[in-house]
């Protein structure tokens, strides 16, 4: 079989095709506790990345994998771009934990892919919506090990608004976010 088609950067001009109106307001078939996840994407100098495509994919409030969609939108999937301050926001539900085929437990998490000018391939990772001590048995937490690095994947709850979670992504340098190779 021929080789894999290589990745190339999304570049700066993707908005018209890839952005959807309300792409950050994520639909689900069932009910769930609505939350927001917000933060900034920063480069190796801590400068906001203003032209990233930020995609999210997650289980519903019961930990069920989404299937199907509503109208012309898939369930469970979000897509926004960062703004001039590097910020993104998604409005979603608190995902439930789910099981792997081997019985392992995946802590409440959202799979995230970020594409941008200057990223020759997207970066993929998972953000956890429960505290560090609640993810010890998660497969990714086990693979990362080092709690300092793992902390880069844990969203923090806004003390003033318990329905709001904050998670910054550092593409490079001090406090660099953990990224995964699928």
């Amino acid at each position, binding site marked *: *079989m*021929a080789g*894999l*088609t*290589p*990745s*190339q*950067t*999304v*570049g*700066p*001009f*993707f908005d*018209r*095709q*890839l952005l959807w109106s309300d792409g950050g307001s994520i639909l689900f078939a069932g009910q769930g506790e609505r939350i927001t996840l917000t933060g900034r994407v920063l*480069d190796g100098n801590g400068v906001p990345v203003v032209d990233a495509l930020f*995609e999210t*994919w997650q289980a519903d409030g019961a930990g069920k*994998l*989404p*299937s*199907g*969609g509503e*109208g*012309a*939108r*898939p*369930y*469970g999937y979000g897509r926004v771009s960062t703004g001039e301050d590097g910020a993104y926001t998604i409005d979603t539900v608190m995902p439930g934990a*789910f*099981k*792997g*085929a*081997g019985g392992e437990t995946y802590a409440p998490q959202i*799979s995230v*892919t970020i*594409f*941008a*000018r*200057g*990223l*020759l*391939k*997207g*970066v*993929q990772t998972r953000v956890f919506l429960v505290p560090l001590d609640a993810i010890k048995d998660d*497969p*990714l937490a086990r*693979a*990362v090990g080092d709690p300092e*690095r793992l902390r880069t994947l844990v969203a923090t709850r806004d003390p003033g608004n318990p329905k709001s979670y904050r998670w910054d992504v550092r*593409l*490079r340098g001090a406090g*660099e976010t*953990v*990224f*995964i*190779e*699928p």
Partner: protein
Amino acid sequence: MVETHAADAHPPYLYPDYKSTRLRAPAQPLVRVPPSPLEAASPSFPKQFVKDSEADLTTWGTSAPLGEKMVLVGRVLDDGGRPVRRSLVELWQANASGKYPHPVDDHDAPQDPNFLGKGQVLTDDEGRYRFVTVKPGAYPWQNHAFAWRPAHIHLSLFGNAYAQRLITQMFFPGDPLCVIDPIFNSVPEAGRTLLVAELDLEHGIEGVALGYRFDIVLRGTRATPMGV
């Protein structure tokens, strides 16, 4: 099946000749974990997500867009050669003058009111897709002195698993700008030809549009956890 290690096919994150990678490329090693059950599944794009008219970028305006009309056909396959069926393929590109309808595009070239430069289709049961568009123009960029991007078409793919997600660019055969383009050259040499479409006259439209073929191979879903 021989495992294809994705790292062999794709460019590195850091490729200093492409300046924007210097501050955006992760420096830490990636953590290898199998796709989660979530990542082994994919968002489902219902049929109504895509309108038939979105496969033809040349009929959007009040008259035909400027430039050389072309048909782009291809198949989306996984690395085992299996068709990726009913999967979303999104396309965006510059117009024939090398201009995007985007506020940050400061290239002094005309917009084409009859060309939006975007389209989308779902693959069929054989993994096939087809777009009608115009050949995009090359354009200058500020990466280095006299830098010009070769003509290219951006493609975004979902596959049947989120872990297959791919964004890439397709280039044109015989374009002398490819070999001096750091984005093209960021790909390990053996893989560069996989980014170049082939002329495919029979899939063109006689007397109207040149045909090109660009097949796309996504990483397999072999890594589905625990052999599901």
